[in-house]
């Protein structure tokens, strides 16, 4: 009786299949939706040494400071926990780093020495809208309506980021992690992301170049991190509220409860 089976291919075919695997990985990077709270890997662009060449490497989204020593520490850091006295310690979210605090907190060293770009074809944000319930009164909890925001004339654009190699003292392994920098929302994003009024720091070519390669002063770093892309350069696409569960995630769906966006 045969319980174990395998299909052997020639060495040449095996290499070809491995090459296809790499090609598919690239395809996934380009089209997948990455959810920050999955703390998954994401392609990040960083300079190679001190050259003007770049490399696209996968890093874990969610900056980890070096004072965390083990994955158990990381779990507590990201999810919150009760300390010895029973007091709840809130989670520490490092998916985003605010531009204003970039040089004050755990990000300072990375902002000075390990800056990167995060490529994207679009990002998602939710508009909070107060809706009227069946009783005719305003519901306490606002409803959330998602938008995909793309950039005019740019299939791919770059967001500013900082990265940090994190050393797991138990497994003796390094995991590269990063945080995406956010700035104050422009007038369009203030309407879309109306709960926080923030947006990613999207950099045009010259600033992206400076962010990656230049020896920047602290003031230069803050100036670039605070850069606001213009509302007119953005294309907001309203999406189905359940778009994450749908096949066609980019289909435009307009809800009557959502106020019209105003440019200006």
């Amino acid at each position, binding site marked *: 009786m045969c319980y174990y089976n*395998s*299909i*052997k*291919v*020639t060495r040449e*075919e095996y290499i*070809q*299949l491995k*090459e*296809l*695997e*790499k*090609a*598919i990985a*690239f*395809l*996934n990077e380009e089209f997948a939706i990455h959810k920050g709270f999955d703390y998954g890997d994401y392609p990040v*662009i960083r300079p190679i040494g001190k050259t003007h060449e*770049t490399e*696209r490497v996968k890093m874990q989204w969610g900056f980890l400071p070096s004072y965390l020593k083990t994955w158990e520490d990381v779990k507590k850091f990201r999810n919150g926990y009760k300390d010895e006295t029973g007091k709840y310690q809130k989670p520490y979210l490092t998916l985003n780093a605010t531009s204003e605090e970039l040089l004050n907190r755990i990000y300072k060293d990375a902002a000075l020495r390990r800056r990167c*770009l995060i*490529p994207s074809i679009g990002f998602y944000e939710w508009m909070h809208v107060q809706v009227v319930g069946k009783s005719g009164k305003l519901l306490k909890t606002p409803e959330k309506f998602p938008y995909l925001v793309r950039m005019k004339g740019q299939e*791919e654009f*770059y967001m500013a980021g900082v990265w940090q190699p994190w050393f797991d003292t138990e497994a003796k392994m390094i995991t590269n992690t990063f945080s995406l920098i956010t700035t104050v929302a422009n007038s369009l994003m203030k309407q879309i992301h109306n709960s926080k009024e923030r947006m990613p720091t999207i950099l045009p*070519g*010259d600033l*992206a*170049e400076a962010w*990656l390669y230049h020896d920047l002063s602290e003031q230069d770093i803050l100036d670039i991190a605070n850069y606001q892309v213009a509302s007119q350069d953005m294309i907001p696409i309203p999406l189905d509220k359940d778009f*994450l*569960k749908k*096949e066609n995630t980019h289909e435009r769906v307009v809800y009557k409860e959502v106020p019209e966006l105003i440019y200006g």
Partner: protein
Amino acid sequence: MVNCKRGQPPAEFFGDNFVIEFKQKKYNCRAIRANGRIIYQVNFNGSCLYLTKSINQHGIPFWTSIPQDLKLRHIVAELGKQLEDHLIEALCVTTTVLK
């Protein structure tokens, strides 16, 4: 300027979407050209399965997933058959591999 685009994309979609049926359910598919070979993307509830036709050491063609996964061999064989039927029916072509 920062130019992070690669010259030639290692994989690109081509042709129209099409649908295959598997166990009374319909699945969206697309063809991808990569390294001179054709791969089929089958969408499964938001995630993707990639299939291509390979050839074993004895010269016999078979369908495989990319990356190869022995656990998926039955479903891959069945989906491959469905893909083949679709291509024969829709385009009057058959799939083949070079030895």
